[in-house]
């Protein structure tokens, strides 16, 4: 089987794009003339601001530089730092949501919706807008070629839900995602290629919204990640907000609390803070300056580098704590690190550089532009994936442990953090009650001992276990983490082969159907379509349930008491009525639930028959 496919691989067009989808800026690179290069149209920078501005006339949003140009004039219609919202439930995003100048709410799927003039956008859709913009921008430099295959980078510390959200964004942008690569790993690839290094390397990646540290060993072209640690809510944005707080405090006398909390005002303050921060990387002091023309208010203060360092010191300390953990996980002493690589715009800050240098006792590498190195590395990985290079290999790890809930809400870990991926682990479980026909599984991600302290990824049930005494069933649960760091779980009862396979769709995440719907649905009717579709699905489901109930009643009618029988018949009637004039999804849902409730005794009765049959040696199919 192998040979034919290998030939196909060799003949395929070898261009694929690497995209660094950043919190503040995004960037694309491709492999060209034996090296990765940033792609940008003639005379323009390659960097595309990860900013979306929605014109008040309802026209198409301005994405990238155009969006950013509008931001200063109308911050109340501009979105920044969308990456911070990816794959996270609204409950975890209180700070972020306060800064969004549009109403937000959480959908029934647990995914955040940002309401722009009545049109809801998920973070996935917004990221897709940015991805499309970066992709187009890059393609304009490729004289007609439009590589649809891409590699997209994410923070190494992104969990399963955040990776899924990124994958969905790529699909929504119509791109063929070859691989999700961790940002620090990509950066290391770009450096390793330039200098043909070997040894142990630490990558310190402080971006706009996230921090990662990864330790790698490089030998003979194999880049093996030893450990990774990080914080998906720590970055240069936090430095900006520390300065924004100074503005807010300074204007407290002149503006009302409401005015100070206004997202438009805050965005303006943020832009002022960012200017000041950038200036402080080169100058010993800089102006923090904001004019609020509409209120005739001005804020002005000179910030020295020392003041700024005091403000950001706690954040930098947190990054060093993560470095300590990565070292301890890898079993490596700081002195054993041969090279330190700096990545991310925030590593331009002199205080950050100084702190990293003294922590590792080494002058960090800064030869490559810290804003470009991740995209360059993504292009290297894209080149490997399209078959252009078998001399290099990247072995990455999973950043957070994966496990299952066990008795008492404890976590049984199946895959421990920093395991090399892909990774398959199988573990055996059994039933704890007599004649138990199903087992519930709850998949979690995190390092803590209790389920309640970990991130809940998904729940599923393995059904169809034949009735047998407690502890007799042999259930094998297999976790497979693929090379993108995404988890698939399957469970199998080994004596009967009852099998369930779940693509882990995070508790707050888009289902495949939802992504399809977003791809297909027109902008205006998306929500309507969804309600109609849900109603249609319920009508089908109720139909199936009614048929099944009627069939089961034939054989079991005489064994049911009158009250139960009447209850079931009433529920059947309600269900039928609801499906005759459908339209209201809520009514359909309640009719469905009612039918399910009423038929529970019937189901129990049937289950009993199955159990008796099994014990008397009859085959299940004959019951």
């Amino acid at each position, binding site marked *: *089987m*192998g*040979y034919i*496919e*290998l030939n*196909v*691989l060799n003949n*395929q067009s070898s261009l694929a794009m690497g995209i660094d989808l950043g919190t503040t800026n995004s960037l694309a690179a491709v492999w060209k003339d034996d090296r990765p290069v940033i792609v940008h149209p003639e005379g323009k920078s390659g960097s595309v601001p990860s900013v979306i501005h929605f014109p008040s006339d309802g026209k198409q949003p301005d994405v990238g530089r155009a969006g950013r140009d509008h931001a200063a004039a109308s911050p109340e219609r501009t979105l920044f730092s969308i990456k911070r919202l990816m794959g996270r439930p609204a409950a975890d995003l209180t700070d972020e949501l306060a800064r969004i100048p549009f109403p937000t709410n959480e959908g029934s799927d647990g995914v955040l919706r940002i309401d722009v003039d009545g049109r809801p956008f998920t973070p996935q859709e917004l990221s897709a807008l940015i991805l499309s913009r970066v992709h187009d921008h890059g393609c304009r430099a490729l004289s007609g070629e439009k590589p649809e295959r891409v590699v997209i980078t994410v923070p190494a510390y992104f969990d399963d839900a955040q990776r899924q959200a990124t994958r969905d964004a790529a699909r929504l942008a119509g791109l063929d995602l*070859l*691989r999700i690569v961790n940002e620090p790993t990509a950066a290391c690839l770009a450096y390793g290629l330039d200098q043909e290094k070997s040894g142990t390397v630490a990558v310190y990646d402080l971006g706009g919204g996230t921090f990662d540290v990864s330790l790698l060993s490089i*030998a*003979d072209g*194999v880049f*093996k990640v030893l450990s990774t640690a990080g914080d998906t809510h720590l970055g240069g944005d936090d430095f900006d907000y520390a300065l924004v707080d100074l503005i807010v405090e300074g204007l407290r006398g002149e503006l009302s609390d409401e005015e100070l909390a206004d997202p438009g005002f805050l965005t303006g303050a943020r832009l002022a803070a960012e200017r000041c921060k950038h200036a402080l990387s080169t100058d010993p002091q800089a102006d923090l300056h904001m004019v609020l023309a509409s209120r005739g208010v001005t804020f002005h203060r000179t910030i020295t580098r020392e003041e700024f360092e005091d403000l950001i010191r706690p954040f930098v300390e947190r990054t060093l704590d993560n470095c300590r953990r990565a070292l301890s996980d890898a079993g490596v002493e700081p002195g054993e690190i041969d090279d330190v690589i700096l990545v991310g715009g925030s590593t331009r800050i002199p205080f950050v550089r100084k702190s990293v240098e003294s922590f590792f006792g080494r002058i960090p590498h800064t030869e490559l532009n810290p804003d470009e190195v991740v995209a360059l590395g993504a292009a290297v*990985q894209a080149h*490997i*994936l*399209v*078959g252009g290079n*078998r001399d290099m*290999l*990247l*072995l990455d790890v999973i950043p957070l442990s994966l496990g299952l809930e066990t008795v008492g809400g404890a976590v049984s870990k199946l895959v*421990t953090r920093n*395991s*090399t*991926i*892909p*990774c*398959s*682990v*199988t573990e055996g479980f059994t039933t704890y009650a007599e004649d138990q026909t199903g087992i519930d599984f709850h998949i979690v991600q995190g390092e803590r001992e209790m389920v309640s302290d970990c991130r809940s990824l998904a729940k599923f049930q393995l059904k169809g276990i034949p009735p047998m005494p407690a502890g007799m069933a042999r259930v094998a649960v297999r976790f*497979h*983490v*693929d*090379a993108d760091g995404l988890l698939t779980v399957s469970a199998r009862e080994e004596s009967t082969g009852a099998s369930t396979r779940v693509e882990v769709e995070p508790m707050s995440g888009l289902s495949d159907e939802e992504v399809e719907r977003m791809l297909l649905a027109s902008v205006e009717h998306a929500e309507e379509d969804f309600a109609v579709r849900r109603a249609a699905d319920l009508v089908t489901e109720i139909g199936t349930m009614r048929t099944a109930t009627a069939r089961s009643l034939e054989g079991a009618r005489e064994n049911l008491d009158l009250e139960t029988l009447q209850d079931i018949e009433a529920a059947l009637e309600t269900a039928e009525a609801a499906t005759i004039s459908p339209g209201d999804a809520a009514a359909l849902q309640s009719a469905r639930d009612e039918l399910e409730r009423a038929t529970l005794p019937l189901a129990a009765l049937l289950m009993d028959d199955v159990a008796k049959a099994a014990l008397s040696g009859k085959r299940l199919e004959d019951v």
Partner: protein
Amino acid sequence: MTTCPHCGAELETSLGCGACQVPLEVTPDLDPFAALGLAPSAALDVEDLKAKHLKISRWIHPDYFAASPELRALAETNTGHLNAALETLEEPMRRADHIVSSLAGPSDAEVKDMPQVFLMEVLEWNEALAEARAADPGSAQRETALGLKPDLESQRSERVAAITKLLDPLPDSGSEALTTARLELNAVRYLDRALGELESLRLADAEAR
């Protein structure tokens, strides 16, 4: 030794062929030693193990098969086995646990005890830990417990050495040595938990300061 169905070369591992550089179909319950093409041993050289892992990764890693969905899926599965095998064998205690189970020795559910000679000390340590847990950060009880660390660590390396000795060369399947090894493994697990608890007490003390 099995041979490659494509080229007939002898296989180092059934996960893939080094000559063709492709993954091959395998049975899912492949032994970790076999996955890495190594003879089962409790005292294997970890550097050797890592070198084998890299070598086989270069034959079968999914990155090299992105263009073909079927080969890519097979490469994903096989590399998943390979990496899980590395996880099992790299760490000496996990490796010993695997050896005891694969030679039909008792599981940790069947034998829950620790070696007799060890029990008196466990009682003392438990007492010190319980007192430290109840006491304030920086207190004398905390200091006493934290002072146990070198003791626990030297006990741990002693136990680990004992286990390797018990399992190298490999004992016969079902032999008494496996039960002894299980007792020792339980002791190491106890020590790891106690050391973990000391570490969290130390961190709490550091934070309080």
